[in-house]
């Protein structure tokens, strides 16, 4: 179906379906705006409150007198320095995005354009990753990674996160390649392109939206993942940002530094919210693709 939700989101065309309001007068619509405004507020308030509060004066934190960035200073000086955890998170996320893009592009191209023995089995097995509980795989993965020398390693975490992205990413890239007309490859082949340069020069530009969607989902998943680093990393200097901020709460003799926690949540959330707002269309495409139908 080509009527995409993004088109619906960005068009002003109004479908008259149930819930369509024939009454246009502002007075009769006031309660509607009050109710829907309240709904929007419920979803935005927690994040906005935390953002404001992270700069607000509050007792028992580094920001007890007046407004300022004291909570962020506490955060910056936490253990190995928040910079280390931020860098760890960025490394894991970017490596996961890179690996997911490479593996799913090559795989999606193979599934969309080639026939080879075992193709369907491989595709179904890849999709089946979705059906196996994430957490139950992490314990054997912990044992496995330590056997191949990737215990307590950020690379190991990125490899695991990439594997968990593959069902969505492979599906997404496969349908992206399938929606490009085959005539395009054939014309390039006639012009003397090898199969790899067809992929690299001709098809890759055509599947760019799919790549952005896959990259966005991989980044959000990796940046935010908690349980894989929790189980797979045991060196405190190797922790990723969500783990470090979760641990920060239990600092000084059971006294939770709420101010620093708020600052930490904001540091965690801001990159995701910005990426989401900028790439919202691509986020929605992930849902439209049917990739969640497994």
């Amino acid at each position, binding site marked *: 179906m080509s*009527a995409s*939700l993004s088109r*619906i989101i960005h*068009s*002003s065309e*109004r*479908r008259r*379906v*149930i*819930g*369509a309001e024939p009454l246009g007068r502002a007075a009769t619509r006031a309660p509607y*705006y009050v109710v*829907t405004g309240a709904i*929007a507020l419920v*979803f935005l308030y*927690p*994040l906005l*409150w935390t953002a404001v509060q992270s700069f607000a004066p509050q007792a*028992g934190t580094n920001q007890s007198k007046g407004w300022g960035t004291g909570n962020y200073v506490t955060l910056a000086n936490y253990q190995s320095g928040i910079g280390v955890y931020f860098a760890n998170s960025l490394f894991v996320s970017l490596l996961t995005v890179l690996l997911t893009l490479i*593996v799913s592009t*090559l*795989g999606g191209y*193979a599934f969309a354009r*080639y*026939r*080879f023995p075992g193709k369907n089995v*491989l595709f179904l*097995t*890849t999709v089946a*990753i979705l*059906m*196996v509980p*994430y*957490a*139950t795989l992490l*314990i*054997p*993965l912990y*044992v*496995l990674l330590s056997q191949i020398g990737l215990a307590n390693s950020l690379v190991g975490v990125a490899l695991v996160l*990439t*594997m968990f992205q*593959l069902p969505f990413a*492979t599906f997404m890239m496969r349908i992206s390649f399938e929606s490009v007309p085959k005539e395009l490859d054939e014309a390039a082949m006639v012009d003397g392109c090898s199969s790899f340069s067809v992929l690299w020069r001709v098809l890759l530009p055509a599947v760019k939206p799919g790549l952005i969607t896959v990259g966005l989902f991989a980044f*959000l998943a990796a940046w*935010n993942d*908690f349980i894989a680093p929790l189980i797979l990393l045991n060196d405190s200097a190797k922790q990723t940002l*969500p783990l470090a901020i*979760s641990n920060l*709460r239990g600092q000084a003799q059971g006294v939770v530094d*709420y101010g620093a*926690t708020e600052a930490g*949540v904001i540091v*965690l*959330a801001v990159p*995701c*919210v910005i990426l*989401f707002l900028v790439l919202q269309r691509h986020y929605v495409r992930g849902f439209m693709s049917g990739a*969640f*139908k497994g």
Partner: protein
Amino acid sequence: MTAHAPQPRRLRRPLRFGDRARGWTYALPTAAFVAVLFILPLLLVLKMSGSNWPLLGGDQGINLPANFTKAISLEYFWPSVWFTIEYTVITTVILLALALGLALLVQESSRWKNLLRTAILVPSALGLASASLLFYVLYSPLAGPFAGLMNALGITFLGSPTGALWSTVFLIVWRFAGFYMLLMLVGLQAIPGEVYEAASIDGASRWQTFRGVTLPLLRPTLALTTVMCVTGSLLAFEQFYILTKGGPDNSTITVVELIYNVAFQGQNDLGVAGALSVIVLVALVVINFFQIRVFNDKDAA
């Protein structure tokens, strides 16, 4: 889009060696990831479940029925199973009903509705851990915005088992409502407009249209979202690990938290953790099988 003249269907090419080899070359990285990081751990967890396998000691040989009997007789096995089921039922019902309501509310396009949709979706960009940390502060009787209210009422949101459960449900609904709303919107858009026109010509009321047209035609989406929500909730971990730490009085320990505790906190018994994992795996396969059967049966009826 250019309209192609109807072409005679091309003959199926025979499977040439060059094609096969190239296909496999491109699929190789996928195959390697799937084999090493998915199939192998799956086999390993089966092996663990049948072995005496302390966290630091490695495989100490077969320990077959013992791991499973030990797993089931763990003090928190049944409490965690019941709690996880209770949490799953509550979350799934509230989350999906709300997501459908929100989807119906924002499905048409207007500037205000687009803003509303974005506002509802923003929490979905946050990680589950970030959202849990955020609500950890929000629910705090010391630093949260409801501290005054809690003091006045003499309660804390996370202080009682019921309070902890519902506070966590609220967090999850907040975090995932937009996600499921988007899936519902995709399903709603797939319903052809003519069906609604026909209903309105027949003089159906809004409620009749919803019951008679929207709900039945939305069944594939409802099946998908139910399976996803049930699976996700049965595997709940971060929200409880961060927000309640399984408390108060160990009342909010989920099955996955139990597995984590057995494997890494105290007992350090990967054999029993493996047995628990296999039980969860089998239970999920069975539950999803029945869910899909139920949705298909209704289809046939």
